[in-house]
């Protein structure tokens, strides 16, 4: 396993947190209630904090004197390895919650397993992050239930979000050739191990929420290979603007 492959693998984990954190931070000041606004913004901060740990590690691995800011803000669209799910827009509160729930359950199981990695830096980050992610999962799962089992309107909206976002779930488990090399050495972990459990868990919660579990067999993918949806360019434009307009700026 080369350092380059390891960095590639870590991007596959860290970029999800970065882009979802960015998406959630767009909601700051726009949440449906003050309390929910604070909760979503807290989650954005948690995710960005986790991202920093991974990027600092990648920067340390690099031989080109990279900083965490270079890694976060100065890559091109094709170099980001986040899944398509996390870049989907904040269409309405139902979408925000379902996107979050589908990701949180995966993220939690991913970090559980990552604690067994041979890479001590990754196990340390996973260990530190999992408490936060456990709370995210509770929060989003609770809201899926409330909306699903709420009013006729909330039920309809959350069902729509579930049906639309379901197509993005399988990509969470996608592995590139380089990912597989890192997994073979025991530094990476194979999400295939918990795929069945993942679908059982979310299907169970959807049923409890009186929602239908989609039966779609066609899934979207591409993000982990750098092929993103039309939304990604806008996210990066906003996120990278400051660093590109004022290179090396500091707060």
């Amino acid at each position, binding site marked *: 396993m080369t350092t380059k492959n390891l960095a590639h693998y870590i991007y596959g984990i860290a970029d999800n947190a970065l882009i979802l954190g960015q998406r959630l931070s767009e909601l700051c000041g726009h949440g449906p*209630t*003050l309390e929910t606004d*604070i909760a979503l913004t807290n989650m954005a901060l948690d995710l960005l904090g986790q991202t920093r740990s991974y990027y600092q590690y990648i920067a340390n691995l690099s031989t080109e004197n990279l900083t965490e800011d270079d890694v976060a803000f100065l890559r091109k669209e094709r170099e980001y390895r986040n899944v398509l799910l996390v870049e989907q827009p904040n269409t309405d509160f139902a979408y925000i919650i379902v996107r979050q729930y589908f990701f949180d359950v995966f993220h939690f199981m991913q970090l559980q397993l990552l604690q067994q990695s041979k890479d001590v830096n990754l196990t340390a980050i996973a260990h530190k992050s999992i408490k936060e992610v456990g709370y995210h999962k509770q929060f989003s799962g609770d809201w899926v239930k409330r909306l699903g089992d709420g009013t006729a309107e909330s039920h309809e909206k959350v069902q729509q979000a579930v049906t639309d976002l379901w197509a993005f779930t399988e990509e969470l488990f996608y592995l590139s050739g380089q990912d597989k090399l890192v997994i073979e050495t025991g530094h990476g972990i194979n999400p295939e191990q918990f795929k069945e459990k993942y679908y059982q868990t979310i299907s169970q919660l959807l049923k409890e929420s009186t929602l239908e579990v989609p039966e779609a067999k066609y899934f979207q993918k591409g993000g982990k290979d750098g092929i993103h949806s039309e939304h990604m360019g806008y996210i990066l434009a906003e996120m990278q603007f400051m660093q590109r307009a004022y290179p090396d700026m500091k707060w």
Partner: protein
Amino acid sequence: MKKDWPLWEVFVRSKKGLEHRHFGSLHAPDAEMAIKNARDVYTRRKEGVSIWVVESKNIKASNPDDNAEMFDPADDKAYRHPTFYDLPDDVEHM
């Protein structure tokens, strides 16, 4: 259906052994969510080890019009206050 969430009062115990203290209030649809919201609004920076919430409407408050009767006793009854005792140095909080 009511559109606005009810108001809840939040009490946080900052350490084991200390009492719960009033931290503030927030809106939530029910008690469970009130505790979650309290976690996000008040206890994300290790402010506490336990949260109580109670719906604000369940709190009966004293009437400010009764302040004279409630809180303003005569000043000339010094014997009501045990201020004439010498406390030993070892007694720290009395």
